[in-house]
């Protein structure tokens, strides 16, 4: 299948971009920065094309659906959303240092999708429960949220590394703080939408908008953690280090919501396939 070929090439492009970002920071030459950014753009373009091809291929197979229906496709979309968000952030803050931290995450997601033995890259037909118009909106909103939380996490890590001489290229604390906050807000709004679209879907498919299935519960836990984070900022004026810590804790909850709950029994466990 062309799409999986293309997508596995994208994995290398993201790795290449990461290496260029590293060169950029080691040698300080703008050339490497530009090379990295254009590699990312090229990767994102090929990535988008791969997603579209996969979508089209599913129609050729006669089981047409958006490429958002199994674990492989969710990993690929997660990486896509992450890189897209990264490009927007780099373009807005005009600073390339974040690339060193985000690109390896995108690379890992892609590599895991392509290489992990228990992740099938086959285009599978939709079982009855997945045959819903809410599938696309639910998956897109959830993973946009996850991507924003991942960026917030990467900046949280940068916050703690910025005083180490090697990482002198990291922007100052205020900028990081604002970026953590902005990405947490973006993630929070998307996660809220993701939970809502999921609830509407569950209402139609499972007969209840909320069943305390582990994934549902963990999405609520994640939501509450970020809700706490936003409250302590607005009301108690928390900034800087504390926000960075919360961004890291929040991301741990995101990871558990995405991957950890698959080891707990529940309605969402079809993701294991």
């Amino acid at each position, binding site marked *: 299948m062309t799409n999986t070929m293309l997508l596995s090439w994208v994995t290398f492009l993201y790795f290449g971009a990461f290496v260029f970002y590293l060169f950029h920071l080691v040698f300080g030459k703008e050339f490497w920065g530009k090379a990295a950014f254009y590699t990312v753009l090229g990767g994102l373009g090929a990535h988008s094309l791969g997603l579209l091809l996969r979508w089209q291929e599913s129609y050729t197979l006669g089981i047409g659906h958006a490429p958002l229906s199994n674990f492989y496709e969710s990993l690929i979309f997660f990486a896509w959303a992450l890189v897209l968000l990264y490009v927007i952030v780099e373009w807005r803050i005009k600073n390339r240092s974040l690339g060193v931290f985000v690109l390896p995450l995108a690379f890992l997601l892609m590599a895991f999708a392509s290489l992990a033995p228990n992740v099938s890259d086959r285009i599978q037909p939709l079982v009855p429960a997945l045959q819903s118009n809410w599938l696309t909106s639910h998956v897109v909103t959830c993973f946009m949220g996850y991507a924003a939380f991942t960026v917030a996490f990467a900046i949280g890590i940068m916050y703690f590394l910025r005083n180490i001489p090697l990482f002198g290229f990291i922007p100052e604390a205020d900028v990081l703080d604002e970026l953590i906050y902005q990405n947490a807000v973006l993630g929070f709004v998307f996660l809220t939408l993701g939970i809502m679209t999921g609830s509407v879907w569950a209402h139609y498919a499972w007969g209840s908008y909320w069943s305390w299935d582990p994934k549902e519960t963990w999405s609520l836990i994640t939501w*509450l953690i970020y809700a*706490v984070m936003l*409250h302590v900022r607005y009301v108690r004026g928390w900034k800087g280090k504390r926000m960075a810590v919360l961004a890291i804790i929040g991301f741990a909850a995101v990871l558990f919501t995405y991957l950890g709950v698959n080891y707990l029994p529940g309605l969402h466990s079809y993701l294991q396939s």
Partner: protein
Amino acid sequence: MTKQKNPFWSFFASVYLTITLLVFTVVLSIVGTFIPQQEAARGFVQGIPPGLASFLQTMQVFDLFHSVWFFLLMLLLSLNLIVCSLNRWPLTWKQFRGAPLSGEEELFRGLSPERIFLCGEDVGTMTGRLEGLLNRKYRRIGKTQGKEDAVIIYGEKGRYSRFAVYVVHLSVQLLILGALMGAFWGWEGYVNIGEGETADAIDLKGGKGTKALPFTIRCDKFKVELYANGAPKTYRSDLTFLKAGKTIYQGPLLVNHPVSLEGVQVYQASYGSSPNGRASLAFSRGGQEEKIIKVGPEESFSLPEKEGTVQIVRLEENLMQMGPAVKILVRSGQGEVSFWVFQHIDKIREMNPGVTEQVPMFNPALFKPYLFALKGIEESYYTGLQVSRDPGAPLVAASAVLMIMGLIGTFFSSHRRIWIKIQTAGEKTKISIAARTNKHPVVLDREVRQLTEQINISLEKGST
């Protein structure tokens, strides 16, 4: 203010309480995903000492999300939200309505130099020009006389966003209320209906007894369609809903497409092969003409001339990997004899020569002089329906809409206020810009920068 001294009031007005409650909710939820809940807890309970098990059961640890603890947390959170909102409301209202032009001299202290301009025009000209500039982008433009000959003009934007956070909190209240309504007045249960059968009651979830439905459901047909790879494609029940013998609704029920009738939702939840499939059983007497009869399990029929009765004892889709088979029991004057009749007996004989002699149970001619043959088993399904009623759902849906609107208002807009002071400074006119926002200082900075650029442009134009 007396209410601030009231200990009850100040306890519930605290944001620390909110944070604490949210953290408790998080902890309870985490525990609830690791300790098996409800039906899943049964096996777990048997594996721990009975004393501990009964203690945990009393503490409602195995149904945390419907426990008194969770209920209490939600109640406290709800009270906390109400008190916090009431507490803050007067200030918000003041900031919303507030006469913006009083005591603003404070605002102009310690301004950064890029927010102060000097120009040649007189105060009157500049005032008119800047008023025009503010008017284009801001609302509630006002003007007042400051100290000495200074003029202060004012404009603001997004003051309604001050209410957005109240909308979010109202939506949380509605959500809790809707969930409680569902918990108290809603119900959920399951019923299996075989093809051609009817049901007018369901088994409530968690073994809480049965519940009569306001109508009768008849399953006319159940169908499974598979993809080429064997994965399920469609589960479909053709249902008829009856009330007092009259059809009130008839139509298919599919996964993701529930049927909603009289406030009750009916969902396609599961299915199964029903034990009452029917066998097409053929028999002939001593090589005479074959007769075919359709029988279900436990049913019997008589052989001609009262030579005996035949009862279907078992019906198997695939017995010992040898295909469909029925076990029959023939009662006659000679006593009882029981044996299996396979559909593919010829093939079985071919594969295992002499099998019917070695295993008389597999011989379809065991009851002489009759020969039995199985023509096929018609599979029969039952459909598994989930039936529920949740009077809180519309409230929850409304809360979702409100919450999103509120969140967008809270996070993506802010109340931005700009004051421009125009005063004479010797030969020249001095313009100072002060600005305040309730959140997102970055956005405000950008706006002020745009404004100063525009002022610069207008000054350049004015001077040429």
